[in-house]
């Protein structure tokens, strides 16, 4: 508690997302000494500074590369990465696809607020086309990434999306991500009233939360809806849950080969 107050703006969704992770860890009964939380740079990545685990706040975009070293060197650690949309999908995009490809047992939670918040509201790889940012004063002409789709196609074995509004569902998604023996990615759709919201006239933090409530459709529900009914909506829930060989276990098999030889 001596680390509070936190640095996030009033109305920021990141605290809800961080709580979901803490709650998931508590629900799973994980040993705090064996949990390692790694982050990069940005609003999202300040979360580990408020969490009582082995916490590592790294350089911009590199959280997954640091985490890969931690996990491979000490596989008994439960390694969880907290990253943002810019951190994970722009400067750290290469590390994201390769961590997913390796299927290394790391759970990544992307705090997606659709903007670079820490630096004051520049457009990010998830800012919707046409929206405004301080570096997109005439509207963003980039096309946004769908980060869960990116992770799934790169080889992640557990992929999901939740929102700050659907807080209880997010806890379950994070729990399942941690339980998956492989690379898991959960996108947590956040709320940035200060930069993304204000710039794009989205109203108050509460208004943005209500928008999440009204526009998020669970993938199971979406299966029964027509494309017209899904117009303007976005999907949440569990998108992928498969089993593939896990990287650190595969490496251990190589080591074991030589232990037998000795």
């Amino acid at each position, binding site marked *: 508690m001596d*680390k509070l107050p936190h640095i996030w703006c009033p109305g920021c969704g990141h605290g809800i997302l961080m709580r979901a992770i803490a709650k998931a860890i508590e629900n799973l009964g994980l040993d*705090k*000494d*064996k949990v*390692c939380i*790694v982050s990069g740079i940005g609003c999202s990545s300040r979360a*580990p*500074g408020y969490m*009582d*685990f*082995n*916490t*590592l*706040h*790294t*350089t911009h975009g*590199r959280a997954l*590369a*640091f*985490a*890969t*070293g*931690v*996990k*491979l*060197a*000490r596989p*008994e*650690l439960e390694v969880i990465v907290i990253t943002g949309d810019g951190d994970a999908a722009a400067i750290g995009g*290469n*590390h994201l*696809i*390769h961590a997913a490809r390796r299927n290394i047992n790391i759970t990544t939670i992307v705090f997606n607020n659709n903007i670079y918040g820490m630096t004051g509201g520049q457009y990010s790889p998830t800012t919707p086309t046409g929206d405004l940012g301080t570096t997109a004063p005439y509207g963003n002409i980039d096309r946004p990434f769908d980060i869960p789709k990116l992770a799934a196609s790169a080889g992640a074995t557990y992929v999901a999306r939740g929102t700050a509004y659907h807080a209880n569902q997010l806890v379950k998604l994070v729990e399942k991500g941690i339980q998956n023996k492989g690379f898991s990615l959960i996108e947590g759709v956040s709320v940035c009233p200060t930069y993304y919201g204000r710039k794009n006239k989205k109203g108050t933090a509460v208004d943005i939360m209500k928008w999440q409530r009204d526009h998020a459709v669970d993938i199971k529900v979406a299966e029964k809806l027509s494309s017209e009914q899904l117009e303007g909506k976005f999907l949440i829930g569990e998108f992928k849950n498969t089993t593939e060989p896990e990287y650190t276990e595969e*490496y251990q098999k*190589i*080591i074991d*080969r*030589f*232990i037998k030889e000795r």
Partner: protein
Amino acid sequence: MKKNNIKLMQGNEACVEGAIAAGMRFYGGYPITPSTEIAEGSAQKLPRVGGKFIQMEDEIGGIAATIGAALTGVKAMTATSGPGFSLKQENIGYAAMAEIPCVIVNVQRHGPSTGLPTSPSQGDVMQAKWGTHGDHPVIALSPSSVKETFDLTIRCFNLAEKYRTPVILLLDEIVGHMREGIAIPDTSELEIIDRKKPSQDDKDYLAYKVEEGEYVAPMAGFGDGFRYHVTGLVHDESGFPTNSNAVADKLCTRLMKKIEDNIDDIVTYEELYMEDAEVVVLSYGGTARSAKSAVKKAREKGLKVGMFRPITIWPFPEKQIKEIADKVKGIIVAELNYGQLVLEVERVVKGSSDIFHIGKVDGDIITPDEILSKIEEVI
């Protein structure tokens, strides 16, 4: 020492042997000429001793994984060459700030940019010192032979562990790819330093709390049962960030002092024919081999020439070079660049001796004859 331990190998291979002897159990890297044999050797040998190797997706990932692994308590290394060394700089600074022991090998090649990838150079000497942003000290060692590559790789790990800092092994393509017979000593004959850890019952452990008279705090590995925070932000004794100017000053000053106050422990060098020398050739790394040959030839001709070879490049052996400059009339600096370490010599000597430079940027080595003719011109 057993006789059959003598092996013919490259400097790059000796680096791997030295690293494993020092206790390296993790390597994270990315292929790049002319350092690739270090990655290949590590990939082959590490799992056989229970260690881990990973080829990351890029150079930045290579050092990031190395730092992450080091934080769990293992000794970790990455190796690269010029372009990769540029890419690793940000995280070298991170390791310096967060005080994570690790070893970064740079097998220098010709540059700038892609340059001549298989040709030698000593163009990264200043980058090793000033490549990162911000202000922090650097330890960099530069070997001249295959055996010394083995020894200095161990020393890099020892210094990293002792001072909780990244340490750079500044190899060059000459030594990295040169083959010599070397005797690999038994592990029992080696001095191996391991980082100081907190005692298991230390309930008040603070990861960055330095005791009076010490320079670094004991370092717990992630997973050892001490939960703490690591960041590249300015942080207090607990490791948590702060904006306090007083804490920033205390931290950054301590990072400087832990190296500065221990220069005599860190600096090593070799001297040859220095007793009556009137002119001294200062050279390092692969180029020092040509310098040594030139100085020997000069002595055969009766010329009073000595040689000084810094083994520790950073921190620079200032004290020793000042003393030499007061005694001799000229110092010839031979290095494979347009003039880098010579600037340090000039700074330290402050005009008390004439300074001459032999440099080269064509991708070829400096020959003994080129150094010898300079000696004859100067003396």
